[in-house]
């Protein structure tokens, strides 16, 4: 499925320079830069956790914007249009995972209260090696995930500015990196609320306008598109034609555990004021996410029908190309003959979505490099100035590598992003879950588990994407059991088993660590700036001798 080389020009899309959309997109980007500049930061506490001052709804919106990348805005509708019922696995996985995050991880993570996801792994398992593996995984996730965003931004940019794909990818990534290097997390969080509003308004306005003008729907297109389903090609609704039951469940499962393991999602819980806010902002975040995820299938249905009527066959060899699919949201608006400025608004929403998420990912990756690798492992006396410098350098270097890779991406936006989820679900989720819910999980267990997860993922990606030929994966049976986008279904239980087994076979973690884990589950309120470790070490007791 992910083997066909992808066209990088969406043929049906009207690619040319358009003045009004260009002004709109530029104004939006200037607004982001302005907000980023107004909230620019000079110290690391602000750069990474926004002074732990963010409230319920604002954090919910930030969760939404952080979450809703080009993969949600563009890729979701593309997957539903191109792969039918299998595409719904992405809707389900990317939304329902938040519930698991809420009941098992959000509040406990807030109580643990460090800066980054690798921080959690390193401190919980008391190991700089574990910290380094987690930090590298974080950077790898940011990289894979951002390639999908860059592809999305590049494709949509073509509609607005014309020109070619390469120029657009370079231009858009340049803007993202520029604003991030200026503003950091506080600016990014303020921006995310703005970005959420822009992207959801643009998406819903596009959906309502297409539905209304084409006579598909009136007031609730999210439900009214049902009437259209019987008129579409059966591939749109027929179950298990583009991927069997196992692949469906594996994909959904991977996206769910990936959601719970993504560093840039978790860091949102470190920015809130209390654990209760951590909980309620998750509920808000899921609400904001559902607004879009209930609408994406409707957009896909409208787009597919318009494509069939105005362009040609959707499925089959001469059907809709991957690049056309990835811009179907914009394409549908264009095919519905909506005014150019309006299509430009829909395109701007897609760009906002991609920039917001890339920002979150790059922040997570840069703090992994500056905080977890540089400060904690290489130079423990690093000044804030040095940390900021390393963090910003990481953003620039990562931006350059992502840009280069995105020039020739190996898969659809949604699929690229799903790869990052399966990595997070395999390597980080088991560490978060066991780390918080089983106090005897220890250092050797974590190291063995994370290594196992990394191996499973790397093997799946090499097997199915990098070394694969036109004939298919190198080892077909491995691809059946560990499909690259769904490797976590079979893989995560293995990682759990390895971690638990090795932990049982080796010494229990020190009492100090156990007490930190317990503090994460205690119902007693904690200070806003306190971490579980602070509480435990302030408490006296047998702590210090233990270490």
């Amino acid at each position, binding site marked *: 499925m992910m083997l066909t080389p992808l066209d990088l020009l969406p043929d049906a899309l009207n690619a040319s320079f358009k003045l009004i959309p260009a002004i709109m997109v530029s104004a939006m980007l200037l607004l982001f830069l302005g907000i980023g500049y107004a909230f620019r930061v000079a110290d690391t506490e602000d750069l990474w956790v926004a002074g732990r001052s963010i409230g319920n709804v604002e954090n919910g919106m930030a969760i939404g914007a952080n979450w809703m990348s080009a993969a949600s805005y563009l890729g979701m509708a593309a997957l539903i249009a191109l792969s039918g019922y299998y595409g719904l696995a992405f809707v389900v996985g990317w939304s329902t995972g938040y*519930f698991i995050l*809420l009941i098992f991880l959000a509040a406990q993570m807030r109580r643990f209260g460090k800066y980054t996801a690798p921080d959690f792994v390193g401190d919980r398992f008391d190991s700089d090696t574990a910290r380094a593996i987690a930090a590298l995984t974080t950077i790898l996730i940011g990289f894979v995930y951002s390639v999908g965003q860059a592809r999305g931004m590049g494709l949509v940019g073509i509609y607005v500015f014309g020109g070619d794909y390469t120029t657009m990818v370079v231009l858009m990534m340049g803007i993202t990196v520029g604003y991030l290097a200026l503003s950091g997390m506080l600016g990014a969080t303020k921006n995310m609320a703005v970005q959420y509003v822009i992207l959801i308004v643009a998406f819903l306005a596009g959906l309502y306008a297409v539905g209304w003008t084409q006579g598909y729907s009136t007031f609730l297109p999210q439900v009214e598109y049902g009437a259209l389903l019987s008129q579409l090609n059966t591939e749109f609704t027929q*179950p298990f034609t583009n991927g069997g039951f196992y692949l469906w469940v594996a994909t959904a499962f991977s996206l769910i555990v990936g959601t719970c393991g993504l560093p840039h999602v978790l860091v949102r819980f470190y920015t809130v004021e*209390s654990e209760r806010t951590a909980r309620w902002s998750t509920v808000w975040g899921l609400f904001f996410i559902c607004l879009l995820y209930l609408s994406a299938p409707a957009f896909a249905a409208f787009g597919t029908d318009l494509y069939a009527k105005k362009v040609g066959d959707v499925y089959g060899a001469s059907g809709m190309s991957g690049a056309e699919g990835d811009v179907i949201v914009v394409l549908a608006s264009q095919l519905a003959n909506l005014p150019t400025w309006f299509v430009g608004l829909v395109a701007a929403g897609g760009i906002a979505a991609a920039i917001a998420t890339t920002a979150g990912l790059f922040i997570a990756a840069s703090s992994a490099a500056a905080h977890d690798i540089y400060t904690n492992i290489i130079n423990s006396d690093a000044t804030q100035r040095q940390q900021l410098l390393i963090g910003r350098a990481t953003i620039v270097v990562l931006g350059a590598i992502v840009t280069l890779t995105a020039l020739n991406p190996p898969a659809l936006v949604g699929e690229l992003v799903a790869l990052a989820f399966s990595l997070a679900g395999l390597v980080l989720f088991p560490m978060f879950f066991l780390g918080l819910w089983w*106090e*005897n999980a220890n250092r050797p267990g974590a190291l063995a588990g994370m290594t196992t997860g990394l191996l499973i993922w790397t093997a799946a990606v090499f097997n199915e994407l990098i070394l694969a030929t036109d004939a298919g994966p190198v080892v077909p049976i491995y691809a059946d059991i560990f499909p690259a986008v769904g490797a976590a279904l079979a893989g995560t239980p293995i990682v759990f088993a390895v971690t638990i087994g090795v932990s049982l076979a080796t010494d229990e973690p020190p009492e100090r660590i156990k007490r930190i884990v317990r503090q994460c589950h205690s119902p007693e309120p904690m200070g806003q700036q306190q971490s579980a470790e*602070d509480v435990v070490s302030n408490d006296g*007791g047998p702590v210090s001798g233990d270490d």
Partner: protein
Amino acid sequence: MSDNNSRKSENPSRESDDASRGDESNTAVETGGGESEPGEPRRGAKRTDGGVATGGRTADTDYLDARVNIFKPSTPFMRDHLRIVWTMFAAWAVFVFGPVTATYLATDFMTSTTVGGFPLHYLLTSMGAPLGALVLSFVYARKRDALDEKYGIDHSSGATSADAEPAAADGGTER
């Protein structure tokens, strides 16, 4: 220790259910078992301290001595919390993997039944699962708030930054 006092005294509401909760919490501490030894003197100290100063109920259960194991909750609070968590997790699993499994097992029925134009499998998957998770999240957050209330937990005091200052100072002097 002075930090503990100051935090507790900000929550006078906890005094009310102190008496009623005393017994079960004490048992819980004992079931915490195994390595209660190192925490022992401290727990005693805390209890006296609680009794004299404010009598906050948090003094009864020493959560730092209560083992954390998702299958073996060791405090009344965790037991109550995990009951909610597991019940809702089961409901979630039905919402998420129910529709696709039903579609796999009864393909004809699920695809030929239509509701408002939607084939049933499409409706339950595309709308049932996300909305189900949203509703469950809301219900969980409400239940968890109710649990906080039952155990006299007040997050508003935990959220003031004034709280953090004495904590930091305290830690500094102790070291």
